[in-house]
């Protein structure tokens, strides 16, 4: 019987080291390791000179100052050429006045796109879908988002995720649904019966032993 083998393209997962790369960008050749010590948002878009991508690039440029305040760099990617990227960002600036301040990878050979599972053949065999990888200063993947070609990303949610991750790292807490800076955070639940009994006496705001919140200052 003939065996059919299908190539399975793996997608980097949360908690794993981000796949290394060296790629030409609009700011010169960059390696993943160049970003060591800073947070990095690596994101892909389907193609230059397309409408949804243009709105996203303007929106990424708009949140860039907020990202910089949080120690986060942005790095875009598509399978277009450097010349196409340069022409597009110049066109965006000329038509809208918005300067794109971050580099964009020209992944013509799809090496980075393949390593990060950015091409989803069910959507498009040639373009990258709208991926977002949030990579921490130790170059560990902390968040993975995938959006379809037709849905532009929500920048406020991306900023919120950065705030959540940085708060989690700083205070060793979790953040509840729709959390935003200033809201109460979730105290990690106890993992022993004794801990559960003590938890309710510790002065937190508790629904029960496994769901307690506190303020952070």
């Amino acid at each position: 019987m003939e065996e059919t083998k299908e190539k399975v393209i793996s997608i980097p997962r949360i908690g794993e080291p981000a796949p290394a790369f060296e790629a030409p960008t609009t700011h010169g050749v960059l390696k993943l390791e160049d970003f060591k010590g800073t947070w990095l948002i690596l994101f892909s878009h389907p193609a230059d000179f397309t409408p949804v991508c243009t709105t996203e690039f303007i929106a990424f440029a708009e949140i860039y100052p907020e990202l910089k305040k949080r120690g986060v760099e942005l790095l875009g990617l598509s399978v277009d050429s450097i010349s196409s990227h340069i022409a597009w960002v110049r066109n965006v600036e000329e038509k809208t006045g918005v300067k794109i301040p971050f580099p964009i990878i020209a992944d013509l050979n799809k090496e980075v796109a393949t390593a990060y599972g950015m091409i989803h053949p069910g959507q498009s065999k040639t373009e990258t879908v709208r991926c977002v990888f949030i990579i921490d200063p130790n170059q560990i993947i902390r968040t993975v988002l995938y959006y379809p070609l037709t849905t532009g990303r929500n920048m406020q949610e991306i900023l919120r995720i950065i705030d959540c991750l940085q708060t989690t790292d700083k205070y060793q807490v979790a953040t509840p649904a729709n959390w935003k800076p200033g809201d109460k955070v979730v105290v990690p639940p106890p993992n022993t019966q004794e801990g559960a009994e003590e938890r309710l006496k510790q002065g937190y705001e508790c629904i029960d032993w496994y769901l307690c919140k506190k303020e952070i200052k």
Partner: protein
Amino acid sequence: MACISPDGKPTESGTKMLRALKSNLKTPEDIARETGLPLFRVRSGLRELVQAGVAEQDGSKYRITEKGAALIA
């Protein structure tokens, strides 16, 4: 090339980095602080400057070469 133009001359960011290297041995972090360039740009730029022979690495620090000094004289 982001720091060295095809004609071998440093770009604006390349010039900034070479000027920062003029006074002393510096780490990429020192150069980023001094020039205001993002650290990732400095790290990739230093690779280019070393490759072009206008800067050289000494452990974790960098210095300008004679060729580099002549470019910004």
